[in-house]
């Protein structure tokens, strides 16, 4: 099986220490986390993790089961890049003088979908949101002009086929939920993971 990028989406309770509990599932197996984002989810009080790794599907499947096994994890899914809409955001700080003198700023903004966040006398901050190659592309453009600082956020991703967690959480909150919430057992049938 070929390694490829997978995005793992985890719905959890918002508890101290859970980040560590999830992170060590990867580090124990010597798997590098390429990107990790935690944020609120569509459901109040429920946290959402996006974790990106480069692994085979077989490994990812086992990792997802280990994650979902954690007491405070409600659900974990994994998706290939085709199955999600995802974005990363990057900020670039460049000397204003250089930019205004040497770059067609207007073209830059159009071609790279960039926007200007701050313009000061000494520096300007651009922002690009998009896929890795897009944020990387902007580095290449700005490097010759003295890129002072660069930072990129973790990936945030939305699963195309998901209808959100609102309905699912009601199932979890029922004392005897229907079989659908335990669907991780159906990981073998990846395309049917969302039975909501």
């Amino acid at each position, binding site marked *: 099986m070929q390694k490829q990028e997978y995005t793992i989406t985890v719905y959890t*309770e918002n508890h*101290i*220490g859970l980040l560590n509990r999830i992170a060590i599932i990867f580090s124990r197996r010597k798997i590098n986390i390429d990107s990790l984002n935690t944020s609120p989810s569509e459901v109040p009080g429920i946290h959402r993790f996006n974790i990106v790794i480069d692994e085979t599907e077989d490994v990812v499947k086992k990792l997802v089961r280990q994650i979902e096994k954690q007491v405070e994890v409600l659900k974990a899914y994994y998706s290939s890049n085709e199955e999600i809409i995802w974005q990363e955001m990057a900020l670039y700080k460049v000397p204003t003088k250089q930019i205004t003198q040497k770059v067609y700023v207007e073209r830059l903004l159009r071609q790279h979908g960039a926007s200007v966040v701050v313009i000061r006398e000494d520096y300007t901050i651009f922002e690009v949101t998009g896929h890795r190659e897009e944020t990387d592309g902007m580095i290449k453009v700005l490097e010759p002009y003295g890129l002072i600082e660069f930072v990129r956020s973790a990936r945030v991703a939305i699963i195309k086929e998901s209808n959100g967690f609102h309905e699912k959480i009601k199932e*979890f*909150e029922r004392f005897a939920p229907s079989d659908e919430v*335990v669907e991780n*057992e159906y990981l073998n049938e990846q395309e049917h993971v969302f039975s909501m």
Partner: protein
Amino acid sequence: MQATATQESQTKQALPGSPMSGSEIVIKALLAEQVDTIFGYPGGAIMPIYDALYDYMDQLEHILVRHEQGGIHAAQGYARASGRTGVVFATSGPGATNLVTGLADAMIDSTPVVCITGQVFAHLLGTDAFQETDVINITTPVTKWNYQVTDASEIAEALAKAFYIAKTGRPGPVLIDITKNAQLQKVDFAGYKACNYIRSYRPKPFVRPEYVKQAAELINAAQKPLIVFGQGVILGKAEDEFKAFVEKSGIPAAWTILGLSALPTTHPLNVGMLGMHGNYGPNVLTNECDVLIAIGMRFDDRVTGRLDKYAKQAKVIHLDIDPAEIDKNVKATVPVWGDCKETLPMLTAAIEAGVYPQWLQRFKDYDAREQEIVITPEKNPSTDKLSMAEVIEALNLATNNDAIIVTDVGQHQMVACRYAGFRQSKSNITSGGLGTMGFALPAAIGAHYGAPHRTVVAIIGDGGFQMTLQELGTIMQFGAPVKILILNNEFLGMVRQWQQLFHENRYSFVNITSPDYVTVAKGYGIAGQRINARENLTEAISTMINHPGAYLLEVMVGKENNVFPMVPQGRGVSEIILCAEDL
């Protein structure tokens, strides 16, 4: 502290309706969970809880161990012998870090244990205060769940969750770390409410009847089916359901070391032990069976040997309560998620009664070969040196196969598991997954408190015994009538065996020396003797078993005996060898 002191000192129990200290809530919670025994060791950060315990000594038995590792192993032994949750108290810092080995052991062997550790005052967290350590993060990989309490109002709920999580689903260890201020703080306590539901926690997967049906179809069509079972049968309290399944199906059943005693050893369909030092037949025939039915076991590498040579020809039915175990090591053809207490009766109902006389004969043929090459010579050695196997045989006779056998780790463990007889479940207690030397003595103490009316025999090597022999002090003080059987081969035998077989006889630091154990035991007020001659064996074992209290019997055995059969590391289970010459 003496009992008389209790009567003289004033009780600190909260009056009904008045605020209660966090510490007293801890005790109330334990009582509500019907805890009867705590294994623990006091210290600075847990003193308020010990102070509260002082008022409840008539309701809770506290066993003062000699080291926190001994405490948690004792709690494990208690849990494994009783089927209930073991409870441990330890203080912060070193007290808590000393629990880590036991937590890791309980985690990998799915033993329900609740550890309560004291912690420094909340305002001192992160300041490198005296005996402060980040227990939550240290224990995260080795606990099913852990939680730090910094406010007394959280204690009851945290403990309720702890007991619920520890004992439900696939059991495991839970640690609750309580800061000293929370122990001292007084809050209104409305009473303890046991937990039976956590939104994000599904202890049991749903049983899918369609998979049970598919499994039954596979079994009904099988010509050469084999059952491999593990501790899941015992943890699920499904021994009767399992026996009914085995008997109706007529399928030979082999066990993992933690599955041992779930089915009586003399059962006609019990074909023996799986894995590295397991029996010949079940290992070889794992690679011939057409349907492999795995029940409550996790295909550990010591069971499977080389995975790409494991049961490749077989369709695999895997019954397990933990969805993460399905397809983890061995790909299941039919996964039957669920508690085997539920799934086994469904499966039994769905299958046709079967008999496989020719297939069973294959096991008998392999057994005859193993008897000839290994078992008979082991039980009847040609030298004057005693063998471990004949000692276990003598023990079987003296106990009528009905003792709780607690083993440590190494050659004696493999020999004990191979040769000990069992009539009832929860009788084999050993450190299977983690292989913790030093486990047996404290676990045997715990097993006594978990099953006080049974004979508990701890079988230990000369290496492992020296790792936790301080717990003789616990026996001395509290009188657990544990029978300690040291099989002394004057070597770290298992490592020596590997050095002999795989490292050209280079015996690197395996020639461990021993103190005079009988004298050591005597120092602790424990009777004992040492024997090295065959003619004394039966009587010595019988003296040990019939002695009214704890007893230590040291048996000198052959120094360089090896455990066979053996699946050498990196080989498939059917490449099992019966003697060193086959290597």
